[in-house]
């Protein structure tokens, strides 16, 4: 799946987890090929919703990461998920 598809996937999951869906923002920060920096998906939510998207012991965030890995497909490039206020 291409990276914009992954953005939409994370957005869909996040808006269903939070109390302030309008404040959910997902952006893609492409890695630089030469410098070996990975592509990062930045998920921003309302400060009060941080706990909802991270979950107890990070379980929600880890579940989202597992789905991202599945969706980026076989041989797909690794995408890192970062959650920010």
């Amino acid at each position, binding site marked *: 799946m291409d990276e914009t598809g992954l953005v939409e*996937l994370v957005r869909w999951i996040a808006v*269903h987890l939070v109390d302030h869906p309008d404040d959910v923002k997902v952006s893609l920060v492409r890695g630089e090929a030469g410098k070996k920096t990975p592509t990062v998906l930045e998920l921003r939510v309302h400060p009060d919703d941080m706990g909802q998207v991270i979950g107890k012991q990070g379980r929600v965030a880890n579940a989202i990461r*597992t*789905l991202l890995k*599945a969706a980026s497909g076989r041989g797909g490039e690794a995408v890192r998920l970062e959650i920010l206020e």
Partner: protein
Amino acid sequence: MKMVEVSGRTVEEAVEAALDQLGATRDQVDVEVLDEGTRGFLGILGSREARVRVRMQFRPEEQNRKAREFLEGLLRRMSMECGLETRFGDDEILHINITGGDTGILIGRRGQTLQALQYLVNVVANRGEERYQSILLDVEGYRDRRAEVLQRLARRKARRVLETGQRVALDPMNPWERRVVHMALRDMEGVETHSEGEEPARRVVISPAQRG
């Protein structure tokens, strides 16, 4: 679960009164007749009121709706063409089976993608709900097949414990898999099971039963 016991001149009247109390319609309840009552002689002598127990049927409709909406959108965004089959089991668990799609990707290595999907669906469907409804997600009957494999493995390892008197630790498993193993050996004489370690490395240990 909401339930009332109500008396009335007839069963029908008692049921009507119970529905009023529950604020429910006939198709939302189960009725148990405790006493059909008797009219008695001339409607007076020896008459006995009818008595019914009326219970709200529990249907996790709201959670079901939220779970399906969330899953459908999520699977579409994973480019999966899938169907969803829903069943509310006797175990009071809402079972959702995903049919079609790339089952290999949806299940993932050792079922971990399925487990992640299930975790998120439970969180999303129960958000803001008073009563927690547990949802068990499956992909094309994967869990049944996996359960059979685990049950066979559990019995084989348990026999070794009986033969050698030595405890055996199984590979790490997710909570659902561990439960399958515990249940498989619950009634087996001579062995005990418990879990050790921290997620995701938590594993079932089969050991000889302590006497007494």
